């Protein structure tokens, strides 16, 4: 059933400053959020959520300012839920609770907010996490771009898991769960000024289920990272730097859709540097790679998983790629925003 934000009988179908005033209109909005995201902790509406997660905790936060707020395969709400869930999952944690804070630009159509909340509802339900606290602010037109969302998340780390960007070891095998660049290109394709037609969808997805499967196969997962902004290249450089190792990847092993590589050529971008929102790269003990891969391939977000390279000892901090032509190329970190070419 579609979600509807019912407000007092203003004739407006847009968010007004009064929706963030703390008064009647704010309560109307909050009630409609409650209807969508209902759970016993949230429903108490105390100043803080009281939770008892137990065990080793993982805690993270992130803000989402994607533009446009709706894009093929997702929207800012789905992104805000998946992004934070994935940050928890990347230390092996099972996500339980999320906070959800909106900063809304005056004039946002109510129907847009409803769509975003419905998407948050769907994504949290699918990932089995609960929104237990939240906030809504409305700011003057022009002081925010439609809608910003901040989410924080709490998860518990299962005993035996010791996953960190510092833990990649020489000899480890690198696994990627599917094709890269879908999110960045899907969003760019919608952006004013460079829009182009494509059937491509963002890969935005919660990866906690996939990580749980991987951990069920083996606890010898040393490092997990989601290659979001800056793409796979930047993530691999982070791992190489933090773990004091080098990384060697193979171009022919890295899955990239033809649409993504074509769009990248057209725009002067490199898929290795394009953002993903449903991808992870894992450094795992070599003897465990096959069993982890087998589990991954059975999961819907790991069907296209591939072994893309390995961790090495020499030249710590360096990432190199063997190209299809048999040559070797250094893979550096992204500097600045990738901009489309001009000539």
């Amino acid at each position: 059933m579609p979600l509807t934000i019912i407000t007092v009988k203003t004739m407006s179908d847009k968010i007004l400053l009064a929706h963030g005033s703390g008064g009647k209109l704010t309560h109307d909005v909050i009630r409609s959020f409650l209807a969508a995201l209902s759970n016993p902790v949230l429903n108490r509406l105390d100043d803080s959520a009281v939770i008892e997660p137990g065990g080793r905790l993982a805690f993270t936060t992130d803000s989402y300012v994607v533009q446009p707020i709706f894009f093929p395969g997702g929207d800012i709400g789905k992104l805000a839920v998946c992004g934070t869930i994935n940050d928890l999952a990347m230390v092996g944690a099972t996500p339980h609770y999320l906070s959800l804070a909106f900063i809304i630009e005056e004039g946002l159509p109510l129907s847009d907010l409803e769509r975003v909340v419905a998407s948050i509802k769907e994504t949290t339900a699918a990932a089995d996490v609960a929104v237990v606290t939240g906030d809504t602010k409305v700011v003057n037109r022009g002081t925010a771009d439609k809608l910003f969302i901040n989410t924080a998340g709490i998860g518990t780390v299962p005993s035996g898991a010791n996953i960190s960007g510092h833990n990649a070891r020489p000899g480890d095998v690198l696994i990627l769960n599917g094709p890269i660049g879908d999110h960045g290109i899907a969003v760019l394709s919608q952006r004013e000024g460079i829009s182009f037609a494509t059937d491509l969808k963002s890969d935005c997805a919660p990866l906690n289920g996939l990580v749980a499967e991987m951990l069920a196969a083996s606890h010898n997962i040393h490092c997990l990272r989601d290659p979001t902004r800056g793409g796979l290249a930047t993530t691999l450089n982070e791992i190489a730097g933090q773990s004091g190792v080098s990384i060697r990847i193979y171009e022919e092993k890295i899955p990239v859709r033809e649409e993504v590589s074509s769009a990248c050529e057209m725009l002067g971008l490199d898929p290795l540097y394009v953002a993903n929102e449903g991808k992870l790269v894992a450094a795992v003990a070599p003897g465990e790679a096959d069993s982890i891969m087998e589990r991954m391939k059975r999961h819907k977000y790991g069907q296209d998983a591939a072994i893309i390279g390995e961790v090495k000892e020499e030249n710590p901090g360096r990432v190199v790629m063997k190209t299809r032509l048999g040559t070797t190329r250094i893979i550096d970190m992204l500097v600045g925003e990738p901009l489309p070419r001009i000539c």
Partner: protein
Amino acid sequence: MKLVSEFRQPELADGLVSSIQRHVSKEARFMEFCGGHTVSIMKFGIRQLLPSTLTLTSGPGCPVCVTDNADLDKAIALASLPDVLVASFGDMVRVPGSRSSLQEAKAAGADVRVVYSTLDALSLAKENPDKSVIFLGIGFETTAPTVAASIMQAEQEGLKNYYVLSLHKLCPPIIKALLDSGEVNLQGLICPGHVSTVIGSRPWEFIARDYGIPCVVSGFEPLDILQCIDMLTRQMANGEAKVEIAYRRGVSQEGNQTAMNIMQKVFEPAPARWRGFGEVAGSGLKLRPEFGRFDAELNFDFDPGPTATPKGCLCGEVLRGVKSPGDCSLFRRTCTPANPVGPCMVSAEGTCAAYYHYGEDDVR
């Protein structure tokens, strides 16, 4: 046709590499004029595939890089005027001029917008009738026709607040200047692909005829470049010097006459300043007098101040092909993509940025 994968097939590359090896019997130096070629060559590691006797040198074909500091200072001074909006392609915003960059001017309050095409700049002019919108016209023959078209459209629509600072440059005159300088000894020229889609391959004929240097127009995929190098080595082995095209899907002998006509209607050749070369006669484009009301140089009162070049920066020498990024004492030390000293480290097509990002042991 698959846009990308068909032009990167390893088996075909192997065949071309063997052919190149068969045809190179002595030391030879080829120049890739275009920054886009430099990027492809470095990104795909093509130099690793070539015989050690064959050297590839990067040329001046990066429009952002060759823009002189005096011209950058003009753009920054214009952006700092009240009620002016400067629209620019992205890379240009980050290039340091004598004292500042457009990015820094923006942070200090100037209205600087990054656009992806001249159509975006025209839209900005329509949306901001109370501002003068100045488009920074940088680029070679590839981009100049689109800028000319924007001026014709502005005229048709009666737009009174659209201007162009024309810093456009022409490729054949600068290659002539480079060869006349006698600083580099070339046995082959990899001619620019995108520029040749517009001007065709004929404008390169003087190089083969007058200087005896084999010329081949190349595309940007690894197989395009390898095929081009193969064709150059074959000419060399046969003692020939002629102009050939290894990029037939994009380039003809005649070029794109419509684009050339639009460009020539709005612009006329003029002297232009090139970083590393100084002023070169007939190597730039300025607005014809009948389009003078769109010319930012003529319609604004601004002071770009004295020109300065950063100490130790070898961008000029790198652009002339006489130095390699590794020869520069700033390279990788004080000059990095995050903190660029010269434009060759800023632009996506800059030689220093390409060497920095894709690296090779000879410069590391």
